[in-house]
Structure formats: structure tokens, C-alpha cells
């Protein structure tokens, strides 16, 4: 086994918030199966807070644990708070990651950020298009 912390193992074995959100307010997909890991984050935003966060992840134990803890850390955060979830913070919350798995903690933070970006972009569009259908895809 790669030398994973107990926390990583716990999140890997019991990942929180796995799934998709049908009517997500934002979706962020990062990584590439060719490189080994791919993550998709789904968020619901209510009153500037992340009212729901879900993910799907293709990848190693670390990638799954990272996705799980990022979803847990982000849940209920304001968008600004969620932006502050850095790779270093993710690794710290997981009680460390093996060196060659650092990139997974990057991916988790990136995917969440991308989902927020996606939400804001849609918001912008919606503002522009005067709120024609809240959950419309681009």
C-alpha cells in the first residue's frame, strides 16, 4: 500500500458525497484518464453558500480521498471560503500524502474551483440573460 495516513484510508474506504447533482449550479472537471486521475465536482449554491457538493472521481486511492475531503471541507462554505481550500490545506487535512500523490490534492482544489468558476460564469450569463431558467446548461 502506498504509505497513506489513516485519514486518507478512512476517506478512501468511506468517501463522502459521491455522486452527481442533476441540477448542479456549477460543474468542474479536471484531470485526464490518460494521466491516471480525473475528477468532476458538482455544486449547488444557495445564498452564496455551497448547499451541496458532490463528486465523481476516476483515480487512485489518494484521488478518491482528496475528492471526499474537499467535498466535506467545502460543504456549507461561502464561495469565498471555498476558494481558500488550497492543495496544501487538503494535504494537511488528510494528515499528509505521499510525495508522488501531491498532484491529487491539486486536482481536488482545482475541480472545486472550476465548479465555482462555472457557477459564476453561468450567473454572469444569467444576469445578462435576465435569469431565463435557473439550471440551464450553457
Amino acid at each position: 500500500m502506498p504509505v497513506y495516513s489513516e485519514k486518507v484510508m478512512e476517506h478512501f474506504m468511506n468517501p463522502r458525497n459521491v455522486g452527481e447533482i442533476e441540477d448542479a449550479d456549477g460543474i468542474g472537471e479536471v484531470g485526464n484518464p490518460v494521466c491516471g486521475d480525473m475528477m468532476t465536482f458538482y455544486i449547488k449554491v444557495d445564498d452564496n453558500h455551497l448547499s451541496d457538493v458532490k463528486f465523481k472521481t476516476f483515480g487512485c486511492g489518494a484521488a478518491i480521498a482528496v475528492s471526499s475531503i474537499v467535498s466535506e471541507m467545502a460543504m456549507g462554505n461561502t464561495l469565498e471560503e471555498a476558494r481558500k481550500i488550497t492543495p496544501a490545506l487538503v494535504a494537511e487535512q488528510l494528515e499528509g500524502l505521499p510525495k508522488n500523490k501531491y498532484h491529487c490534492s491539486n486536482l481536488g482544489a482545482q475541480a472545486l474551483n472550476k465548479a465555482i468558476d462555472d457557477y459564476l460564469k453561468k450567473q454572469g450569463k444569467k444576469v445578462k440573460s435576465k435569469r431565463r431558467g435557473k439550471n440551464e446548461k450553457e
Partner: protein
Amino acid sequence: MRRAYLDNVATTPVLPQVLEAMLPYFRDAYGNPQSIHEWGDQAREALDDARSKVAALIVAQPEEIIFTGSGTEANNFAIKGLTLARQSQGKHVVISAIEHFSVLHAAKTLEKWGFEVTQVPVDRYGLVDPEEVGTSIREDTALVSIMHANSEVGTVQPIAEIAKVVKKRGALFHTDAVATTGSIPVDVKELGVDALSLTPNQFYGPKGVGALWLKKGARIIPFLDGGVQERGRRAGTENVPAIVGLGKAAELAKEEMASRMAHLSALRDRLIEGLLSRIEHAILTGHPTQRLPGNASFCIEFIEGEAMLMLLSHQGIAASSGSACTSRALKASHVLTAMGLPAEIAQGSLLFSLGLENTEEDIDYVLEQLPPIVDRLRQMSPLYSKFLKGQQGGR
């Protein structure tokens, strides 16, 4: 919890008879074979006996066996030592694209030393085409090295056919037989090679020992410089207990070869058939019939190998994978890639390598445990949901 070790490619347990044979050489007959006294005599006799047993296993002469510290060392010794001994004749080397890293990276070192290396490709089953080896050989080819079998995908190469081509072109031929020696018949004369690497940690013998068989008369430059052990060809105090273990493991392998092969291939087929019938979108990798008796290797689509291994381990099952995430370098197995498998499919690599101590119950346990693990990971996989959506869309 049930435990099932199906990672015999990583290493095999040492058989009780092998360990028993080794034990006297740690504390009783602990002498150095070079010494001029009784303790030395005991050790030397043990060495001679082991040498004969190894030679018998591969149908060679005892004095053609050079003991090494590992399969990796035997390969480094062959690749570097045989080419350096022939470099005046040419500085070109031919290997296959799916060699073990101990051949591949040794060849990289040769490149740094001014050699040129040609990698012969393999087909989708991992087979090397003898013709292709023939056309890669040049006037200045010092050495050809093609592995006997690849342990990741189990494909066994037509070494005897390749040897004919190599001989016709006048080059020296080494084969890495680490994955085959002790598992399937290996006869150096039938194979027609000039040098062959082996290690018992793949056939129920100890780690930390290996051997290079070198055809009488072939010249080699020592790799480990130092004392006069192994007739000046491999320096260092001989690892007597391990060499004795190698000898015993070789003896047992020879005696039991047929029954072991029958046992393993029955289990292997049960696992392959069971898995393919229980798990959709799973691919058997390697050659369907020309494969090692204990090798059942797959790619499970839409999910990644390390995650599978971790969940299998949680159920007490040991297996391995050639996925990028399971490698330190985070690169998918060069073997799977060379066979033309797309990288995202190679990520789902899962290898069960069976051993003597496995039973039908082990296989059935894996067949029971694996499908829910695959399901669980697929439920998490964005690739799988995309696939399902695509299918729906397609319908």
C-alpha cells in the same frame, strides 16, 4: 477474514522444504566457500550441489551457471557484460519493447556508453515477431535480448524461433527467463540462446539470489569487480544459504513442473472465465493461449488499478496492477502501452498471478469479492457515467 495471495509475480513464498534446506547454512555450516578448512568445504560442497541442480533445471552444465544477487543483477550483468566483451565487433543492441526494467534501463545505460539500441515492437498480445527481430539485426549488432515471458501479461515468446533468426544473423542471444524458469520448461539448448537470466524468488525460492547461465565459451566482462568467486566472473562472498535455497527450489520445480502447471492453469482458466463472465467491460491482456500458467491479467474499464488493489486488500486479496497510479513514476506500464492499449484502459490494469498455494476457494473468493468492488468504483467514476450516458444517447 479470508486471505488470498494472488501476487506471485511480485514474489513467491519460500517453500517449507526450501527453507529447511537453507537453515543449516546460517548458523552451522556458515563457512565461506573460499576458505581452506572444514567450514569452507561444507559451504563449497553446498554450492556445487546447488549449481548442479540449477543446471539440471535448465538442461545446462554446472560450470555454465554464474550465481548473482538477483534477477536484476543477472540482467544487468548480461546486457552490460556481454556487450562490453563484444564491443569491438559492434555497438548495437536489439531488445523488445516489453522487457523488464532491468533490461530496458541497462540498455539505456548502454546508450550513454555510446551503444545504439533498437526496440522491437510487439503485437496486441505482446508477441514479438521473429522476422522483425531478424530485420533489426545489423552487421554491428553485439547482442539481442528478448525476454522468455513477460510476467505482467503472461505472454510467452517464441524464443526458439527467434534464436534461429538471431543465429542466422550471427548475433549473441540473451533471454530474461525470470518469469519462466521454474514455472514452465526451460531448456537452454532447445531455446537456442547463449545466455539466460533466472531468479528463484519467482519459483518459491529465496530473494537475494539469481543466476546467469552463460554458454560455455561465451565471453563476458564482470559486472561486480572484486574477488575470484564464480571463477572470477562475479565477485562477492557467496550467499550460501540463498544459493542452497535456489538449488532446492530448482530441484523441486523440475520434479513437480507438470503437476504445478496443471494446477495453475486450471485455476487461471477458472479465474479468467469467471471474471470475464461476471464483469462487463473487462479485457484479458496478453496472449489467450501462449501464456504463463499462473497469469490472469486484465484491464477493467472505467476504473483505476490502485483503487481496486486497495479495496481488494481490504478483503484480504493481494494482486497487482500496471496502472500509472501504482507506479512510482506515475506512468502506465510500458508493456500495456507497447501492446497498443489506450492509456485510460491501461489505468484499469489488474493482474492476478497465481501460485502453488492457491486453491479453487481462493479463486472463487476473488470472483465473489471483485464484482462489487468494480461496481463501487464504477459508481464513483465519471468515465463510467459518461459511458452510460453515451450508451443511452446512442440508443
